[in-house]
């Protein structure tokens, strides 16, 4: 296996692969969402800032300060019956050049009866020759509500960085009562910049986001979301019990400007995590 072949430079500079496991379960008590179980190991840390409403906000931290080939992070969350759980990250996840292997980030989210979970990590930034393989597996109760927003930046344009080559794979599976209701399969491989230059891909833009909402308000949210997307390179549609919106933008700042009001609206008035500011 490639992962066994650690070069001398790596042995000195970065001897350990980052490993992290974080788990959290929330339960409802006295009309508020409270902590039920909590576990963290390795580079995965979870902070629970005080909130001013009945919901819980969990801020995920990767203490290794970025990921590279061979790193493995595993998150799992459960929003118990009647809870409101918002998950975000303290920083943008930075994926650095991988000498070998891919960074693996797996997230599992279970949302119970009458509960709602919002998966709102900050942008993932992929640097040149980064390799990231990510998965998001969601299990929803019959009447659970779920919102996911994932934003990806190929380098930081303002810093003159571009992801020329590398790998980005993102696999989502959202199930309701065991039935697959939504799947996403993103795959940018090898010459990422050449691919992103194609008009059918990103017309050279370096930022894009996928927004999926599953729940009873999908229909009602569509019209206002379309208004908020305005004349951005974006679109939204609704079918079955889901709303899907996709956005591209020249850089991360432009993307955030579009995303913030949209996420805010999709949260139905609940405040946005503080990290989601311009």
């Amino acid at each position, binding site marked *: 296996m490639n992962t066994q072949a650690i070069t001398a430079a790596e042995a000195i500079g970065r001897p350990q692969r980052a490993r992290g496991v974080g788990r959290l379960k929330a339960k409802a008590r006295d009309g508020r969402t409270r902590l039920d179980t909590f576990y963290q190991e390795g580079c995965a840390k979870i902070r629970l800032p005080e909130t001013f409403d009945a919901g819980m906000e969990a801020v995920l931290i990767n203490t290794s300060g970025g990921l590279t080939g061979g790193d493995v992070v595993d998150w799992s969350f459960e929003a118990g019956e009647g809870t409101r759980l918002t998950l975000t990250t303290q920083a943008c996840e930075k994926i650095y050049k991988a000498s070998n292997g891919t960074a693996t980030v797996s997230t599992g989210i279970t949302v119970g009866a009458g509960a709602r979970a919002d998966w709102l990590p900050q942008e993932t930034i992929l640097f040149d020759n980064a390799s990231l393989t990510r998965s998001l597996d969601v299990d929803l109760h019959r009447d659970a509500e779920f919102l996911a927003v994932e934003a990806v930046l190929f380098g930081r344009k303002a810093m003159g960085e571009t992801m020329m080559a590398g790998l980005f794979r993102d696999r989502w599976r959202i199930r309701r009562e065991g039935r697959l209701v939504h799947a996403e*399969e993103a795959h940018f491989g090898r010459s990422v910049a050449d691919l*992103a230059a*194609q008009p059918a891909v990103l017309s050279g833009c370096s930022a894009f986001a996928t927004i999926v909402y599953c729940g009873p308000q999908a229909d009602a949210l569509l019209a206002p979301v379309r208004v908020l997307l305005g004349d951005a390179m974006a679109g939204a549609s609704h079918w079955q019990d889901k709303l899907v919106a996709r956005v591209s933008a020249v850089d991360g700042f432009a993307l955030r400007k579009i995303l913030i009001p949209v996420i805010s609206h999709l949260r139905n008035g609940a405040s946005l995590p503080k990290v989601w500011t311009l």
Partner: protein
Amino acid sequence: MGEGIDTRALLRLMAWLSPAFPVGGFAWSGGLERAVADRLVADAAGLSAWLETVLAHGALWNDAVLFAEAWRQCDREARSRVDDESGCRLSDGRAPRVEDGAGRCVEREAGRGSEDSSDLAELAELGLALAGTAERHAETLSLGRAFVSAASAWPDPVLARLPQDVPYPVAAGALAAAHGVPPVQALAAYLHAALSQSVSAGIRLGVCGQAAGVMILAGLEEEIAVVSARAAAGTLDDLGAAAVHADIASLRHETQHSRLFRS
């Protein structure tokens, strides 16, 4: 051409994927209509590049992977059926398809039969869940259902095993396997038909003329062959697309004011 294809299989493939086969493919543009309106596609060169991306890195690539997986699942089923009849020939006298190079029946995969319809149902569910926009979902479902209904002219037990809600590539892949059409050729024909339909849509949208449209199809031949071979040799793990703007165009088509196409 490598693997050969017998005349009867070729005729069936031509029938199923002909524009005259009543699935209604002409009514859909897969978001191309909006891409043209948004000036993402402006001329023949642009249309060619757009279609090549959709084929190798977009919805059509995922369709190819789903088609190939449906083909494999139904091929396994066909194999065990051949074995059950203790011979290499099906009762309707169709040519054997389960032979190795020396003409022997290849090994049986016992007990696959009952599993297969649930595998197919799961695959259909995945195909529909992967349709990234409302119109793409409507398109693949409408074409898939119409395909199954029209294909009843070639009776085969596989038609009954397909779920009611079936995406187009899963229906087409399953039927191709059941009738012994080799996967690479079946995929190439499927992809060619989809791209022909898109080129025809492009012509109707005024992106290019007939002659340029034919040139685009000729130019895509090599990529169709590559993608067909790659998908036929792949697994569901090879699903994955990058065509974000093609998806956005499909989403934006819903709000386009004057439209010739349903997607």
